[in-house]
């Protein structure tokens, strides 16, 4: 029996009956929500977790075959949801995790009653008339570039981190720990993320969905956000003043306000 709580370093806080699940995207870990999640602790049971391979997750659980598609990550979300008995919960996904949440919502109807997508993109690579913002070659360049930035990860460091999977406070003392991942896993996650295509999944989503679109987001350009809006039947689209790809860090108040309006 897999201990999903340990595997995904699940952290539960908050006082509410209804759960709000926060999922981080490619890059860092659940700390991405550190300025947003506390605002909902009064009214919700907040559930934060690390994708396998990131943060305080159990790296030994990483499985090349399982995590070769976003579906593998969605299975993790479903498993966490089952473990916690989630019903009609709110799923808040940043970046690629917006799609992971959409897939999880489709797998188990009723588990998530609302979706919040922060900077979503159904497909990052351009395809005919569709604008994702990237060319295939650029994604290959990214994978090479990731190698040049090992994020403080070294072979010597690996056992320390893996050995402290159950005591993440030790790991957090270390530099760049919020974004530290095994380089091979980071590359694999980047590949899965930037080669994903969930365009045909979106019309199936039948729960209310809030899309938060940043201004000047080069990872998820406005055209990509609008595509998500047009594909999901019951969606609300809000363009934030915040720039960049991480409004949850750069403009938490704006994100919180938009989310409160929705939930």
């Amino acid at each position: 029996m897999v201990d999903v709580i340990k595997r995904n370093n699940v952290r539960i806080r908050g006082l509410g009956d209804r759960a709000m699940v926060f999922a981080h995207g490619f890059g860092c870990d659940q700390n991405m929500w550190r300025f947003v999640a506390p605002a909902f602790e009064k009214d919700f049971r907040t559930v934060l977790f690390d994708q396998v391979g990131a943060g305080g997750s159990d790296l030994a659980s990483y499985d090349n075959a399982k995590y070769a598609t976003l579906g593998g990550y969605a299975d993790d979300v479903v498993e966490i949801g089952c473990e916690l008995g989630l019903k009609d919960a709110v799923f808040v996904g940043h970046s690629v995790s917006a799609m992971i949440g959409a897939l999880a919502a489709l797998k188990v109807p009723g588990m998530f009653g609302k979706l919040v997508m922060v900077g979503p993109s159904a497909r990052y690579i351009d395809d005919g008339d569709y604008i994702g913002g990237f060319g295939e070659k650029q994604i290959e360049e990214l994978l090479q570039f990731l190698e040049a930035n090992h994020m403080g990860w070294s072979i010597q460091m690996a056992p320390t981190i893996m050995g402290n999977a159950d005591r993440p406070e030790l790991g957090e003392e270390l530099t760049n720990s919020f974004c530290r991942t095994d380089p091979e896993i980071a590359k694999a996650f980047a590949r899965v993320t930037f080669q994903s295509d969930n365009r045909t999944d979106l019309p199936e989503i039948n729960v209310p969905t809030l899309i938060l679109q940043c201004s000047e987001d080069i990872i998820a350009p406005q055209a990509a956000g609008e595509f998500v809006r047009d594909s999901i039947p019951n969606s609300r689209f809000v363009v934030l003043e915040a720039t960049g790809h991480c409004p949850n860090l750069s403009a938490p108040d704006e994100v919180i306000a938009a989310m409160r309006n929705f939930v």
Partner: protein
Amino acid sequence: MSNPGFDYIDLFENAPCGYVVLLTNGRVERANRTMLSWTGYPADQMVGKRFSDYLSMAGRIFYETHIAPLLRMQGFFNEFAIDVVGADGKPISMIANALEMRDAAGEPLFVRLALIKATDRRLYESQLLQARDAAKISLANERATSELREQFIAVLGHDLRNPLASISAGARILGRDAKTDREHQVVAMLQSTVVRMAGLIDNVLDFARGRLGGGITLDRNARAPLQPVLHQVVDELRLSSPGREIREEYMIDVPVDCDRSRIGQLVSNLVGNAITHGASSQPILVSAATENGLFKLSVCNAGEPIPADAMTKLFEPFFRGEVRASRQGLGLGLHIASQIAKAHGGTLTVSSNTKETCFSFVMPLL
């Protein structure tokens, strides 16, 4: 300013690194002269633009997914690699540190970046990565080949032993009905060849296993007597080399905790070696004894001493002494014997002079 070393504006503008100041929206507030000269942009062109506009696409993604979040979360990010695209469109490899300056309430004010041109270093790093990847692939190929070889040798060993057993059985049947001296001679020759061949197969398999990670494995047994095993091995060799005198002296008073068939193999290899290299007119002496907490076994023969330069290489695999081609082995016998000695926590040594050549195996009695 009389001393230009304390001219802070000059220090900023002409520092030996590029300085870039970014506003919280990621736009360039200021870039120093060093940065401008490295990249070839005029100042008014850079200021007001998003810093990520000057990065390669991979750098932009990395900036948005790693650098910007880390600056917000931990306030700094040191030693990251970044490619800044110059005015000529060419990427300039840099290493950078970034620091988020905050007000008293912890709100971000701006970001300071210090960038060092690191073309050679980054090139070197990427070459190291390429070399590592190439080594990984080559290692994986080697492993696959080596696994195949291991299987091949195991199958070969098995397949060679079966026909050898048939030849041996056939020779025994012929031996029972042999009448003439010539028939007896041929049968003896067949049996001698079978023994030698079996020994070669054993050595090849052991060598292959040892080289491929298995090492020599022991099946120790302290209770069963060792002497009958030694005698049987010597007897077989005696039968297959009629005309050679082999003397045995045993004084094994206490049980020896060893793998008996391995020790048998060690003796077989040493005696086989003595038969090949020793003077055929002189006896070979096999002696084994337990004394002072040690088990000692030696095989001595008379004959030409081993040349000094050969002494150091005797136990190396595939080392073959000067003998006539028909007696030439694989050069594995002594190597395997020394490995068996080592596996028992013992040693195999050699001494050689004009009087005699002795191989001595010594292992501790537990």
